[in-house]
C-alpha cells in the first residue's frame, strides 16, 4: 500500500498485494502440484477407502483453484458482487453434477432397474 502517493486522484486504485505475496501464492500452487503427483502414486484406495485417491486429488485441486481465484484473480479485494458471480458459477455446476448423477447412479439398480 505504499504507492498511493504518486497517483493521488485515482480513488479506486488499490494495490492488491506485493510481489512477496504473489510469490507465496505461487509457492502454494507449486507445492500443491507436487503433492498431487506424489499422492497419486500412493494407493490410498486400499489403505483408506475406494475413491480416496480421487478425493485427495480433487481437494488439492480445489485448494489450488481457491488460491488462484482469491489472490491472482483479485476476488479478495473486489466487491461481494464479483465473489458472488464466481461462487454462483460453481454452485450451478454442482447442481448439474448432482442432478445428472442422481439419475445415472440410480439406474439399473433397485426395483425399476433392468
Amino acid at each position, binding site marked *: 500500500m505504499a*504507492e498511493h502517493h*504518486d*497517483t493521488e*486522484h*485515482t*480513488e*479506486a*486504485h*488499490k*494495490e*492488491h*498485494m506485493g*510481489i512477496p505475496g*504473489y*510469490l507465496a*501464492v*505461487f509457492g502454494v*500452487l*507449486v507445492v500443491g*502440484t507436487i503433492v*498431487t*503427483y506424489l499422492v*497419486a*502414486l*500412493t*494407493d490410498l484406495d*486400499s*489403505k483408506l477407502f*475406494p475413491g480416496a*485417491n*480421487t478425493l485427495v*486429488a*480433487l481437494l*488439492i*485441486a480445489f485448494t*489450488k*483453484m481457491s488460491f*488462484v*481465484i482469491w*489472490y*491472482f*484473480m*483479485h476476488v479478495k*479485494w*473486489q*466487491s461481494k458482487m*464479483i465473489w458472488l*458471480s*464466481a461462487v*454462483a*458459477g*460453481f454452485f*450451478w*455446476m454442482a447442481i*448439474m*453434477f448432482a442432478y*445428472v*448423477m442422481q439419475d*445415472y447412479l440410480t439406474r*439399473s439398480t433397485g426395483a425399476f432397474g433392468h
Partner: protein
Amino acid sequence: MAHTDTHDDHYHPPGLQHQFEDMKQQEESVSIGMWAFLVQEIMFFGGLFTVYLVFRSRYPMAFAAGSNHLDAFLGGLNTLVLIVSSLTMALTVYYAQKGNRNMQVILIIATMLFGCVFLGVKAVEYTDKFNHGLVPVNGLNRKIKGEEHNESNQTSAERPSTQTELASQEKNSLESPKPAEHHANPRGEFQWTGENFEASREIILEACNKNYLTKYEQIGYFSNGDCKTGVIDQHKVQDKVRIFYWIYFVMTGLHALHMIVGLGLMTWLLIMAWRKTYSAEYYSPVEISGLYWHFVDIVWIFLFPLLYLLGRHFLAGGH
C-alpha cells in the same frame, strides 16, 4: 482499502468514461462483465466435466487403464508451466497498476513464452497418441502397414489430416523404419492392444478379485458379463478405453484452444503495453485478460489430476 469518498465533484480522472460515476464503479463494471463471461465458461467446461463424471463413474477401471498410458510427468510439467505463466500474468497486472511499461512488456512476453511451451508439450503428447493408435477417430492415427498388405495402403498413409499429424509425420519421416514391436494398424484405427491391453487386464482382474467391479463394468469388460466366470474381452475393453480418449482429446483440445485464444489476447496486450497504454488510471484490459488467463490455468488444475493421475496408484504396487 478502496476510497469511496468523492471529495471533489469537479475532478474527473483521465481514464474515467462518462457513463460511470467514478473509477471504482468503472472497474467493477468491467470486472463483473468478465466474470459473467467466465461463469459461462465454467458452464461450458462444466458440461464436459459432467460427461467425464458420468462415464468415469460407469467404467472407472477402463478410465484408469486409459489414463495410465498418458505421460503424467509431461502433464505435471505442463501444470507447473501454466502456474508459472499465471504468476507472470498476475505480476503483469501488478506492474500495469504501477504504469511500469518495461516490466509489463517483459512479463507479457514471459507469459506468452510459457503458453507456447505448454502447447509444445501438448503437441508432443498428441503425437505420441497418434503414433500409438490412441486417437479415438478411425483413420486419424498413424497408419502402420501390416506384413502382408504393404502396397494397398501406401497412398492413404501419406495423407495427414491435422496440423499435429502433419508435424508428427514430418518427424516420423526422419526416423528409421519403425521396429516390429508396433502393432500393424493399416487403417489408422483406435487400438487398445498389446501391452496396453495386458496392463488394463491386470488391473481389471485385480479389481474383480477385490469385488470392486460394478455390474455395469462386468458387462462392459467380460464376454458373459461376469468377471468371476467370464473371459475378458479385448474389444469390449477397447470400446470403454476409447470413451476415455474421446474425453481426453475433447477436453485437452478445448483447453488448448483456449490457450491459443489467450496467446492472441497476449499479443494484443503486448502491443498496447508497448505503446504505454496502461497506467494506474487505466489497466482494465490487463486485468480482464489476466482473469481469462487464470481461468484457463484453473481448468488445467482440474484436468491434470482427473485425466493423468486417476489410475497411477494401480501401477504403484500396493496390491
